[in-house]
């Protein structure tokens, strides 16, 4: 298990991380969320030893993380980068060897991953000769080629087309199913909601929400209420609630979980025919916005 405890990092006067703590478990996918500049990349770099925190520590299976532990980690930074002039097969083999694999095993693993990503016939091509999408795949393969126990991906979905997003999401699920702990950051909250079991939301260097996605949703004091009415636009008359979207007579409101539904339905019916009426736990987006705006004192 990956345990991050009280991680603090300052760059001069700028506080990038301010006592962040969370865990990641084998076989589970953690979505790591936060606004730009919240400290996601700094946290990931600290896990990989690229950033030395001022305070706090990162532990793997109970031990402080050192070079030996890191050899079992896979990392894809937000700023993608590989040697453009190297042959793809050699490049993958090189990174596998750097992570401690022996020559023959590294070669085999590289060939295996290229085959798995549909690039089996491009092993002899230079990286720069590949399409942008295929270069992204090689980058992912570099993070996975040495069979890591923990995979950390910084914005892995950015820049992918919908098909690429779909296949990467599928692959992450498969990898986690083999017992690997996966942590990735993203701004695509619907995607995180679909793929991740766990979520960590960070803001201003502090973890503002962390836990199992479904549990967090269920435990929320809010519900998402969605009503569509034929006829006049319906304005919700509620004691509390935030309208999150309003379109073509359909209204989505975040309401207190204890709201009197009969009363709401009755008020909607007074306006026109109700064609849709749903009352569900809030979406991850709702949780995110709530957690982040609370931290900002909004």
């Amino acid at each position, binding site marked *: 298990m990956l345990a991050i405890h009280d991680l603090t990092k300052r760059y001069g006067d700028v506080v990038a991380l301010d006592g962040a703590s969370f865990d990641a478990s084998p076989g589970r996918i953690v979505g790591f969320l936060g606004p730009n500049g919240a400290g996601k990349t700094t946290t990931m770099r600290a896990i*990989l030893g690229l950033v030395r925190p001022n305070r706090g520590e990162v532990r793997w299976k109970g031990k402080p993380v050192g*070079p030996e532990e890191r*050899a079992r980690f896979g990392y*894809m*930074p937000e700023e993608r*980068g*590989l*040697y453009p002039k190297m042959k793809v097969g050699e490049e993958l083999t090189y990174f596998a060897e*750097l992570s401690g694999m022996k020559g023959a095993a590294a070669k085999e693993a590289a060939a295996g991953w290229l085959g798995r990503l549909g690039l089996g016939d491009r092993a002899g091509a230079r990286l720069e000769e590949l399409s942008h999408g295929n270069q992204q795949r090689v980058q992912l393969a570099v993070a996975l080629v040495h069979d890591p126990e923990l995979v950390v991906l910084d914005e892995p979905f950015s820049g992918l087309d919908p098909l690429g997003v779909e296949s990467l999401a599928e692959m992450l699920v498969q990898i986690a199913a083999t017992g690997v702990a996966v942590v990735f950051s993203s701004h695509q909250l619907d995607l995180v909601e679909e793929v991740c079991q766990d979520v960590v939301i960070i803001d201003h260097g502090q973890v503002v929400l962390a836990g199992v996605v479904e549990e967090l949703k269920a435990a929320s004091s809010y519900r998402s209420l969605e009503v569509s009415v034929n006829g006049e636009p319906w304005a919700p008359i509620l004691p509390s609630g935030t309208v999150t979207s309003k379109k073509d007579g359909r209204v989505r409101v975040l309401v207190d979980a204890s709201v009197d539904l009969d009363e709401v339905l009755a008020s909607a019916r007074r306006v026109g025919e109700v064609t849709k009426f749903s009352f569900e736990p809030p979406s991850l987006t709702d949780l995110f916005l709530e957690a982040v705006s609370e931290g900002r004192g909004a």
Partner: protein
Amino acid sequence: MSGGARRLWLVARREWSQRARSLAFRISTLISVLIVVALIVVPEMYGGGVKPTRTVGLVGQSSSQLPEILSAAGDQLGLSVKSRTYPDEISGRAALRSGDVSVLLVDQQQLVWKAETDDQLRAIVTSAVQFLERQQAIGELGLTAEQAQRLLQPPDLRSTSLEPATKERSARVALATIGMILLFMAIAFYGGSVLTGVVEEKSSRVVEVLLSRLRPTELLAGKVLGIGLVGLAQFALVAGSALVALALSGNTLAPKTTPSTIGWVLFWFVLGYGFYSVLYATAGSLVSRQEEAQSIQFPVTGVLLVGYVLAFVAAESPDGVAALVGSLVPPTAPMVMTVRIANGGVPWWQIVLSVALMVVTVYGMVQLAGRIYAGAVLRIGRRVRLKEAWRGSGV
């Protein structure tokens, strides 16, 4: 091999394999070898091999061995002596007048000149005729072939000089200067390759992937080692072919110190490259784009250039203060000491001191540079200031 040493070696091996098998490397090595071999062989063919030629005209009675003996006697005095036989003295004299022959030898007894006598040629012909007559006299004594050989063999006198020959010394210094220029170029080129390599890793962002798997010092040291091995291999290949060319061409023109000068140049390349490549790598870690790489390497190349200029000063006055200091201080020692050693007369303790200072400095610099490199290499974007890199170590 420990994990760190293995990773360092993997980095070095990648640098080696990517560079040594590139077409540019092969072509530049081939061209360097061809140039060096040509520089040695061509003058040897057209200058060293061609000695002044004299022709001796032979008339009347003369031994059939004479042409061969004349040629051998000429070789000893640095003359190529040929012979031509004429049927009678009249045709011989005609050849002498027209300049076809330098002298006419009649019946192995009389020398006929066109006008002035050539003392050198006369001595050669005289000793050749003397040799033949002695051979004949010895034959009449009834000695064995071995005894005869001993009588005829000229004594092999060893010769030494009280003072070094200035001509030989200036040739040595000239050769060392060429070696020093090559050394300077090799350090600048391969040091520059280290800098470019570091900047490439930053600009392509691969450095973050790398450093998630190895320490900055492992990456730095591996890169320096790998590129250094490529440079040393190229240098050694060129030097080796120079030595082979010297041996095969008979080496009459190059100073006798050529092999040792080549050895010293290779030795100082290792130390000088060690010093400068670390400086270049540190400079490279401060910038993120190739366009900035040019300006950031100016200070380093500037220091290197000081050594280059000082080496010329040392070639002029090898015993001056500038030469002495320059040959001891690490940044300039590789260039200056190479020239001073070739000049001769450098006390051994100065060489030892110079090498020791160099080794200690390189070791210390790797520590300092490792910290700056580690603090700067992950900062992509604007140029990193030295102070920030120093403080940001282990970021």
